[in-house]
């Protein structure tokens, strides 16, 4: 259960996230101990992060983007995902009524700070079904290793 990114522990409290966010907004108290690069929830694209013994995997939920217009860069331990989504929502006009316009469009940019042991030279990114998956390999030295015990005799 814990292994799945979509069943992140703390599901019970996920419902409170929106309430939490609203309270933050009303009371003006961002969590005092939050990361310096923390962003408000609800940013586009939404990001899930997981680790395996070999790599750090970042899943960005970015539907409807031409992969050639997606830009992934790693610089000084910061992974930046940027791009642009062209809005093909109909413009309201004389003959068009718009009832809902919830999807965001235009340029976006998100930054994720990578752990110390991530190797910026070995990054692999794929885009499928609207999900950008970025795999950053860990440095060889930090991977779990089995140490052989030699016979002293």
């Amino acid at each position, binding site marked *: 259960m814990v292994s799945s990114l979509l069943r992140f522990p703390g599901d019970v409290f996920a*419902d409170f996230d929106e309430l939490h966010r609203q309270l933050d907004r009303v009371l003006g108290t961002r969590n005092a101990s939050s990361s310096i690069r923390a962003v408000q929830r609800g940013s586009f694209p939404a990001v899930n992060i997981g680790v395996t*013994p070999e790599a750090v995997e970042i899943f960005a939920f970015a539907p*409807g983007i031409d992969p050639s217009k997606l830009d992934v860069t790693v610089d000084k331990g910061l992974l930046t995902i940027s791009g642009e989504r062209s809005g093909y929502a109909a413009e309201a006009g004389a003959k068009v009524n718009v009832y809902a316009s919830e999807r965001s469009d235009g340029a976006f940019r998100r930054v994720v700070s990578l752990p110390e042991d991530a190797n910026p030279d070995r990054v692999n990114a794929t*885009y499928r079904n*609207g999900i950008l*998956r970025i795999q950053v390999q860990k440095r060889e030295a930090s991977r779990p290793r089995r140490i052989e015990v030699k016979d002293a005799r």
Partner: protein
Amino acid sequence: MSNAQALTKRDSARGEAARRDQEIEAPALIPLVDISEDDSGITLIADLPGASRETLSLDVHGDTLTIEAPIALEESDELKAVYAEVRSGRYRRSFTLSRELDSSHIDATLKDGVLTLRLPKLEQAKPRRIEVRPA
């Protein structure tokens, strides 16, 4: 024998609990949509990242259109979550259709996690210009 019975009973109870655990998942995510209407019909665009054509279900039941899709990440088993903004395994959203829409001719395409639905209006519901003749 009574022992064995108790054992199977306990087993089935455990199985039930496990099933219940699976059912009590995070509530489905509500996908964001754009909806616009022109003379010939309504266009609905929904963001469904992680949904694929094989697993997406579009269901019209009576006058209710339901969009439902599981989210597939294809993560490996040894992946441990450290941070998650998307905490549900599926999308679900329903819309009530009005009578002038032709629910038997809905056209749907899914590309890069974006679903585009075209709901045409019935022929008789399309706007017509009524000519006023001189008396």
